[in-house]
């Protein structure tokens, strides 16, 4: 007799009792790979790192493809709430601790990643023209991080593509984040660095998300690098002052947050299975508004101080602005965006950073709220208040609150992932761009 024991639920719709040979093989490969990676951080050397990396990627892909091709296309969120890993069970907490630990090692103890850095160094040399070790013999872990980040988005992107294959919006959006990560965030910056004497520039990573991009030292660095450097500086300024307002006016913040941005890309792929863990309470919304706008104020202040200090030659503020920038980098960028933002996926949902911290999201949110054609439209009186939309909103918006009143959703935080529309069993919700007047759809 086939049994469905929910207590052993590792991953939704996939009880180990019901795995076929291919799924089991995939999971075994993945587990051995993970073990290999752990051994490599304990000094096991690049061979372990190579076996570890290879087997985790291969195992994950085999498992994902075999699991997800089961059944006709459509929303299949079966068993998510019974899953220990996805529903804050002990496996979820273990995953959170593991991921948080990885970020702490990455930021503060990178020497443990040496085997992995050695492993991918040939690729780094080939792609970017420089080694992970500088002339003084100091190691940089950041190429490795970019590599792992990209691979994760690609592998988990395959999962999202299969899971949401019934929706062309989801397919195109997933392909978009995979493309922007692979091309704009990873390959192009490295290749350009190789061709231009190490000049590294991320085209799709906009200030204030890339917080130091408009600091005096970054700007001077770009100005030293000829026509290309000047164009990069022009691009940086145009990105935030021209491109962002125009695209957000027409399409909402989604053009960036869920189609282009790397943080968004990771949330939509690796984080997709955790999206239901975001807090939907009114209290969380209050915290969110205070926090995210405080971070925006902080980075604007920090950037301003840096420039003041630069203009007055450091005589006015002394080392204060430098301390501001270091503190921002440590507390906001490393701890908030990295350790908490990604490490806490299994506990607080996939958009912790995007929702509570990202200053770029704050700018886009203000634009979306007050100067945009974007809204989520509610289809008449068809809402049955089931709660699927709110449950699967990664930004913690209580979508149902609006939908059941027949009110359109105009919220600063909506990243336009389109999942509320996808999971709605009555076809009530739709992402639309339309006239700015009376966007909420409530008769005036």
């Amino acid at each position, binding site marked *: 007799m086939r049994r469905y024991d929910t207590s052993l639920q590792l991953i939704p719709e996939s009880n180990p009792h019901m795995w076929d040979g291919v799924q089991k093989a995939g999971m075994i490969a993945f587990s051995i790979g993970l073990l290999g990676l752990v051994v490599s951080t304990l000094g096991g050397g690049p061979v372990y790192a190579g076996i570890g990396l290879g087997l985790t990627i291969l195992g994950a892909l085999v498992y994902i493809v075999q699991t997800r091709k089961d059944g006709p296309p459509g929303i299949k969120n079966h068993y998510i709430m019974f899953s220990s890993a996805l529903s804050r069970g002990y496996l979820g907490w273990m995953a959170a601790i593991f991921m948080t630990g990885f970020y702490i090692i990455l930021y503060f103890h990178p020497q443990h990643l040496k085997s992995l850095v050695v492993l991918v160094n040939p690729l780094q040399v080939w792609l970017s023209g420089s080694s992970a070790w500088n002339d003084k013999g100091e190691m940089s872990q950041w190429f490795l991080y970019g590599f792992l980040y990209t691979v994760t988005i690609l592998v988990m992107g395959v999962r999202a593509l299969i899971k949401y294959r019934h929706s062309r919006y989801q397919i195109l959006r997933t392909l978009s984040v995979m493309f922007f990560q692979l091309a704009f965030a990873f390959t192009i910056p490295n290749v350009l660095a190789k061709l231009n004497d190490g000049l590294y520039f991320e085209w799709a990573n906009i200030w204030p998300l890339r917080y130091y991009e408009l600091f005096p030292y970054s700007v001077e660095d770009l100005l030293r690098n000829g026509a290309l450097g000047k164009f990069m500086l022009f691009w940086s300024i145009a990105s935030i002052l021209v491109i962002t307002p125009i695209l957000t006016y027409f399409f909402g913040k989604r053009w960036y947050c869920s189609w282009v941005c790397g943080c968004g890309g990771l949330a939509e792929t690796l984080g997709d299975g955790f999206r239901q863990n975001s807090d939907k309470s009114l209290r969380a919304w209050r915290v969110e508004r205070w926090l995210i706008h405080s971070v925006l104020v902080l980075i604007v202040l920090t950037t301003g101080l840096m420039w003041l200090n630069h203009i007055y030659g450091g005589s006015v503020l002394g080392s204060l602005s430098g301390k501001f920038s270091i503190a921002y980098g440590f507390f906001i960028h490393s701890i908030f965006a990295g350790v908490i933002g990604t490490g806490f996926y299994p506990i607080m949902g996939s958009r912790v950073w995007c929702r509570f911290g990202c200053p770029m999201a704050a700018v886009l949110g203000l634009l979306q709220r007050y100067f945009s054609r974007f809204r989520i439209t509610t289809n008449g009186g*068809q809402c049955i208040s089931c709660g699927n939309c709110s449950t699967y909103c990664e930004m913690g918006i209580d979508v149902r609150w609006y939908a059941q009143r027949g009110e359109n959703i105009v919220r600063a935080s909506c990243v336009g992932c389109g999942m509320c529309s996808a999971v709605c069993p009555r076809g009530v919700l739709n992402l639309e761009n339309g006239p700015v007047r009376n966007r909420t759809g409530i008769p005036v």
Partner: protein
Amino acid sequence: MGGIVIIGNGIAGTTVARHVRKQSDRPVTMISSESRHFYSRPALMYVYMGHMKLDHLKPYEDWFWRKNDIELVFDYVRRIDPEEKRLFLANSPPIAYDKLVIATGSKSNYFGWPGQHLAGVQGLYNLQDLELMERNTRDIRSGVIVGGGLIGVEMAEMLRTRHIDVTFLVREDRYWGNILRSEEGAFIGRHLKQHHVDLRLETELKEILGDASGRVRAVVTHRGEEIPCQFVGLTAGVSPNLDLVRDSTIDTGRGVRVNTFLETSAPDIYACGDCAEICEREGERGRVEPLWYTGKMQAETLAKTLCGHRTAYDRGVWFNSAKFFDIEYQTYGMVSPEPQDHEDTLYWESPSGGQCFRLVYHKDSGVVTGMNSFGIRYRHRTFERWMKRGATVEEVLTNLDEANFDPEFFKRFEQSIVDAYNKTAARPVRLRRKKLLGLF
């Protein structure tokens, strides 16, 4: 003064409470013995399937009721005393009311089948049914569902997520034969087969067989076929829940009889939602509308009456929606299950079999009176506007693109639908395209 007391905290009762509170400061009390807080009944299936937890089904956070000064009583009403204007409860002292709203909902139909009281045999309507179903379907291999309606197909989907084999007994010659036309019924039937549901049409339940321990072991059909199973879902519709009012002086028929102002035969007592039987004229057989949407609209109307603006219930252009496994369904206006003499119809199905669409219109005037859509989302307000205005089939088809509510980048079928119409139409229709990006 006792204020407004509402029996039942489903969509009807809750909507009355909320809308009264929007319009007045009168005390409002809501009594339920099913759940402490309002939850979405149509979403029960998602808890079983693991899409949501029970908490997710609550449309309002628990603080909402106190903040809006709506008192919640978790108790069972035993008796109404219309003379003294009092309610007697099972576990707490009597409650006085100034105005009383009966919103007790429905009960599953049991038609007296032999064996319907065996363990493992049940309907699905409330929270307690869901808990029972969780227990009844643990570690079983196969189930039989009786009755081809919406709850039946939901139950089939629920069981299939647990990899339980499903046999679906339907009395009519097609799925949901008292609502859907034969093409749509066959269309959904094919989809059910895709999901490995064993659909048995024109098959009636004769008897349910139990084992020595009193648990179901098989069902017998009217043809004498025995189908082994460990679970039987009885989903042959619902009827108004009259347990409370049947023995009172309040007039009942199929439901609690009310006029179009939702007033019962007793002074200051009203009824709305599933349990109400709305009678246009006195003594006539009324209509029962056991739908989420109508419950909500009736309650909004009743709230106005309770707050001093006596208002008649007018449900407007009919609409409904549902989902059959992966296929969403919307209907606007009226599409009768059998073709009518005075009307013409356009039926279209996509080549892939994932979508179908029907328009029903008057033979002579061409005025559109009903629409069915499966697998394509259409705008409620647009169709409502068209039908209120008496738009013709040509007008609707010309502007069909404007009514599409599918997400961006989805494949569009409007041209294909118009082509199907033009094949037989005297005057061809040209589809008007939506502007690119809404601008050009």
